[in-house]
């Protein structure tokens, strides 16, 4: 493997880096490259931002109807009326 990473190689290692899956020599090469490279630093920041934005996809709350249906399933289960599989 070459001593330094190219940008094209670095972006393919971004997830391994974020997951802590890079062995330490590779991790060092990755971080050395980042220090001197605006494009890759920006790419990594954008991947982090992507993760954050995806993580903010809010779930709808459960509807009242669905909830009361499930609670009645629970009562059936509790009373033993929910048939065994």
């Amino acid at each position, binding site marked *: 493997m070459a001593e330094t990473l*190219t*940008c*094209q*190689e670095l*972006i*393919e290692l*971004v*997830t*391994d880096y974020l*997951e802590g*899956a890079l062995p330490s020599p590779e991790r060092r090469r990755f971080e050395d490259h980042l220090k001197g*490279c*605006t*494009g*890759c630093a*920006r*790419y990594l920041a*954008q*991947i982090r*931002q*992507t*993760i954050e*934005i*995806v*993580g903010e*996809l809010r*779930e*709808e*709350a*459960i509807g009242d109807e*669905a*909830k009361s*249906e*499930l*609670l009645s*399933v*629970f*009562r059936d*289960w*509790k009373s033993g009326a*929910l048939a*065994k*599989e």
Partner: protein
Amino acid sequence: MTDQRGTTRADDTALIERLRAGDELAFEELVEQYHASLIRLAGMYASDSRVAEEVVQETWIAVLRGLDKFEGRSSLKTWIFSILVNRAKTYARREGRYSNQKSLEEETADAGDSGVSPDRFVGPGGDPDWVGHWDVFPASWDEAPEAKLDSKELRRVIQQAIDALPETQREVISLRDINHFSAEEVCNILNITETNQRVLLHRARARVRRALEQYLVE
């Protein structure tokens, strides 16, 4: 043991005891916490929302029936989501909509798609010192209009990008980045190796970043 949301196994133990004792409030808490996430996840496999709702309903029933046998080897959340994923896949297979192993192999073999076009880099014909380096930096998102970053439209763009992913990539990014499972938990739920998990997550995030880039700066 702590997942990214900070739920501990000790919390699980208390909750499970309350559930086993028939505490309806405990079940209500559980349903409020996970039902909507389960519906979303089921929706990835189901042909329509009615099927998704049915799968989730069956999941809750399976959870109740399985409570006595649950040994806590995984977190309660992982266990519930595993049940959901297995049922949803069974339904989807029955409808011929889930291709399983074949697609996993195909998707991990599909190495070319990084979400960044190769022509963004200096090619073999360029300056030999700079081959493989950025020819054009990724455009900055800092100048994107504030309104674009905080809008329904942004959610739609992301949802669409996720929907467009191959199915195993979609499963992994949904579980990791939307539902905040750890890598290990995702491997257990989907029954894939750590390496596959990382490859699939990598592709998925790169493609969603690409969709965001198009929306924010192009």
